[in-house]
């Protein structure tokens, strides 16, 4: 029974590797790489479910009866191209973040945001005290 | 064993495929064992091109239909063009960035420092 399910386990392992990379690394490029690995593992999941034993590629031919299921192929074809499109937008965002913050490490971005936040609250407090004085 | 033309063609095709696989493996061993970037690239460039060629010839002999053979011939031509060009591009990029090959000194010792910080080298 276990040997029949090994393809799902491979998918789960890849998925967890991608998940770990996204949550454990601070560098934005590595997060995008982790998302790519996660995406590809989902593709492998669907495609391995579509395979029929002793079937061939889903192109009609004389003499073959058993074909692999074409429906997941269609869904994954769409998914691959949409994945590359979103990766491109993600990378564009990374470039702009680098230009705005000077670094693509999550901790640096977080600390810069905290500084800006503190500066804003200090400004707000000083305005409140000034209006109270006058 | 009947020595008709079919068996001979199959034997030649199997021979070509085996030679191609062996060349691929030896190219892989070359990447791991050679000491320098340039020697590694030489190993891979030469053996991978020949290996791809042999495998394609083997595949052509396996199924000698006209359309399949024409497509495989085109793939072979493209590979023969692209593989050496890619090796050339890699070597050019390496020289441009300052990585020098390990050469012998006048006394016969190997040079120690083979990274040269040059801005724009003439390549």
């Amino acid at each position, binding site marked *: 029974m276990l040997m029949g*399910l*090994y393809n*799902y*386990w491979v998918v*789960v*392992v890849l998925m*967890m590797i991608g*998940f*770990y990379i996204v949550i*454990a*690394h601070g*560098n*934005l*490029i590595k997060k995008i*790489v982790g998302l*790519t*690995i996660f995406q*590809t593992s989902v*593709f492998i999941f669907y*495609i*391995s479910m*579509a*395979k*029929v*034993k002793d*079937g061939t*590629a*889903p192109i*009609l031919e004389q003499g073959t009866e*058993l*074909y*692999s*299921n*074409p*429906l*997941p*192929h*269609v869904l*994954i*074809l*769409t998914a*691959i*191209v*949409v994945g*590359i*499109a979103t*990766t*491109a*937008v993600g990378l*564009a965002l990374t*470039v702009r973040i*680098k230009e705005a913050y000077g670094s*693509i*490490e999550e*901790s640096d971005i977080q600390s810069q945001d905290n500084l800006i936040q503190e500066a804003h609250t200090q400004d707000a407090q000083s305005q409140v005290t000034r209006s109270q004085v006058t | 064993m009947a020595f008709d033309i079919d068996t001979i063609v199959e034997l030649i095709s199997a021979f070509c495929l085996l030679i191609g696989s062996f060349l691929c493996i030896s190219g892989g061993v070359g990447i791991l064992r050679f000491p320098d970037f340039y020697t590694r690239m030489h190993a891979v460039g030469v053996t991978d091109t020949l290996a791809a060629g042999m495998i394609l010839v083997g595949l052509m002999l396996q199924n000698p239909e006209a359309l399949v053979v024409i497509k495989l011939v085109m793939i072979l031509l*493209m590979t023969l*063009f*692209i593989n050496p*060009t890619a090796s050339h591009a890699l070597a*050019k990029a390496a020289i441009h960035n300052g990585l020098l090959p390990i050469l012998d000194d006048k006394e016969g010792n190997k040079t120690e420092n083979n990274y040269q910080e040059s801005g724009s080298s003439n390549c």
Partner: protein
Amino acid sequence: MKDLFAVAMLVGIYGLLSASFFVAMDAVDVAFTEASVGAGISTLLMFVVITMTGRSEDPVRHKPLLALIVVVITGGLLIYGTLDMPYFGAADAPIHQHVAPRYINDSMQEVGVINLVTSVLASYRAFDTFGEVVVIFTAGIGVLALLSVVRRRDDDELIDSVNDSMHEQHLILRIVTKMLIPFILLFSLYVQFHGDFGPGGGFQAGVIFASAIFLYTLLFGLSTARRVINQSLIRLIAAIGVLLYGCVGVVSLLNGGNFLDYNVLSSDPIAGQHLGILLIEWGVGCTVASVMMIIFFNFAGRQEEQQQAKEKEKS
């Protein structure tokens, strides 16, 4: 692994390996797309971004133990969930029962193309493909909004002098590229129109066309490539691709059928299907090729702008 350059290369190799896995799983169309997109375009884009954002990452400062625990727990739950799934390759799995036999058995009579994936993609599920084309177009607009740079017109003489001096340096590469690019473009057209009979179709053709233009840009410089390929024309073609797709659907509506129902496009339903599939694959190919070119040109233009700003600071 601290070097992002090596990480990007490994992602490319991973894409190629998964493409060969897809071939082993009889998914030839998917393998084609994954090889061209995952092993080609995504690696290239990552390299361009790494050029702009820095090559190595900072050392990790916090301990990732909590992340590891979460991952292991989630993995365990998922593996427990897969114990009920059907076996690998079983022909009686529920996935093969309901819609797929109809596609496999009736596709030849209803649609008339022998590539089942194309018939499902372009005819049975054409609406999903329409959504996908719009998503690609939106991604192109997103990258345009984020990264486009307003340039002043480059001097033609300056470009020509730079071109001549570079020509000597990259002689072999340029000559081989000049010989190869027509074949790559021809191959992309072949893939586009052969999607009915073998693996192929609009997506792969668009990506291959765009990669030929990338090759040209890499070797001949961004300014020359901008003169060859007009940027506004590319944006127009991207919009025209989506519009063509939508128009086919609207024409079907006007002829009395449903949206994207190809049977009413011509007197004979099968001819109508063929016409509809041809037109929408053409629309998909146009949009994908031009959006890939838009994305690449904007990334490269931004990088060029950053380099020019750095040189101005130094001088």
